[in-house]
């Protein structure tokens, strides 16, 4: 489905976010507050698209490249391809041909439509201009136009607009069946598709032609299916729990190809696509150590012992979200706290205590304060470039303790 909140950018063009996302953005999707996004939808049905970027110096950046089924199939960035200027060909599953010298071919996409989430690290507002200059080097060019100095990306807004469930109880199924025409499921899921075909679900099937009983069943199924996903999302029942934190499964980022359908659906519900664990791991919790839902009526702390701070190659951050998966309005305009840009204070012994509450914990502790809303909330702890200990889950994130 079309990424919620992504603007109506033209196909095969980047849309750049030139400021950190704040609570003014209200379209959900758990946006981060550490990087500037560069987002693009691609159409590979005609030819490959070449992604290029300039020299990135020591700035962390990553292009997460996902197929329409939300699995990542390639990465470009500091960790995977390095920081020097580069050109990379994103090709469809059936493409065969030759590439110009200096263009490196990435693994092929299993679908014609592709979503790119680029992230460029920003060390606070003062660093914004420098980050924007790096973003300006990001280009998407059709293979046939490489070397053409007069090429102008044509306006093409042929993104798939979902049918509206408010006016049509079968809207979700119509959206699905239409999207699968150009972006078919993986061949390994043919058996499942054969089953779903018996109730009218599959590429190009006309839902309106189904019998009334099947339509009624499908209309109920989409409502209850969504309720199930939302319930699992809140309880985190599908995830391993450590100190109250939900630890994403190791299939995260490539759950579809690993037949982990709950994970891929939850990932889409929360943030459309998710990083491979080697790139970044996101822990989250909706509850405190005792399982009670986090609420702004309470005060919480997270305490890292001197040697417990996460071992990451790039940075970590803790971000506050309301129940609509948006950032939270607060009096000090702080939506996250982390190692990239925050000036939190360590204790003399090297330990760190973070304060998570609605009101200031006091002037001496304010640097370590992540403001919460008055209502229910949840938090995401992001680890960029996690060490092996984090990936293999031997490092433990300390809990949120209610004070």
């Amino acid at each position, binding site marked *: 489905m079309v990424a919620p909140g992504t603007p109506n950018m033209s196909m095969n063009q980047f849309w750049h976010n030139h400021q950190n996302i704040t609570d003014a953005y209200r379209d959900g999707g758990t946006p981060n507050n550490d990087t500037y996004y560069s987002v693009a939808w691609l159409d590979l049905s005609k030819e490959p698209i070449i992604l290029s970027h300039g020299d990135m110096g020591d700035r962390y950046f990553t292009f997460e490249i996902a197929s329409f089924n939300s699995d990542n199939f390639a990465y470009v960035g500091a960790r995977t391809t390095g920081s020097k200027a580069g050109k990379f060909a994103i090709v469809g599953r059936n493409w065969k041909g030759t590439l110009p010298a200096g263009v490196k071919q990435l693994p092929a996409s299993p679908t014609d439509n592709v979503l790119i989430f680029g992230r460029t690290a920003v060390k606070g507002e003062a660093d914004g201009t420098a980050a924007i200059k790096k973003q300006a080097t990001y280009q998407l060019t059709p293979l046939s136009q490489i070397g053409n100095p007069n090429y102008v990306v044509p306006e093409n807004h042929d993104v798939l607009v979902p049918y509206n469930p408010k006016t049509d109880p079968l809207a979700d199924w119509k959206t699905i069946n239409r999207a699968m025409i150009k972006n078919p499921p993986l061949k390994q899921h043919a058996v499942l598709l054969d089953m779903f075909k*018996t109730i009218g679900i599959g590429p190009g099937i006309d839902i309106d032609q189904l019998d009334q009983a099947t339509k009624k*069943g499908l209309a109920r199924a989409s409502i209850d299916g969504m309720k199930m996903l939302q319930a699992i999302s809140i309880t985190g029942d599908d995830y391993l729990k450590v100190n109250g934190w939900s630890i994403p499964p190791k299939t995260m980022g490539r759950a579809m190809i690993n037949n982990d359908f*709950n994970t891929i659906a939850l990932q889409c519900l929360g943030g459309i696509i998710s990083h491979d664990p080697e790139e970044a791991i996101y822990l989250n919790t909706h509850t405190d150590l005792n399982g009670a839902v986090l609420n702004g009526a309470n005060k919480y702390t997270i305490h890292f012992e001197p040697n417990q701070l996460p071992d990451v190659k790039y940075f970590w951050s803790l971000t506050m979200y309301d129940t609509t998966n948006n950032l939270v309005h607060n009096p000090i305009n702080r939506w996250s706290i982390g190692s990239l840009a925050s000036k939190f204070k360590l204790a003399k012994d090297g330990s760190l205590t973070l304060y998570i509450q609605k009101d200031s914990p006091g002037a001496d502790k304010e640097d370590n304060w992540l403001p919460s809303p008055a209502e229910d909330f949840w938090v995401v702890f992001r680890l960029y470039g996690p060490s092996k200990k984090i990936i293999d889950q031997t490092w433990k994130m300390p809990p949120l303790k209610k004070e």
Partner: protein
Amino acid sequence: MKKISRSVSLWILLFVSSFLQAQQNNQLNALNEEQAYTLGVQAYIFCYPW
């Protein structure tokens, strides 16, 4: 008299037959709806990325 009772019997037979048929259709519809619902919930999870 016999003719009348035969036609009434036939009418009753037709009525019962169509009633049973309708009941069967209702059951079949209910079955179809439940099958679409049960499989549909699973399909919804699988298809959510689309």
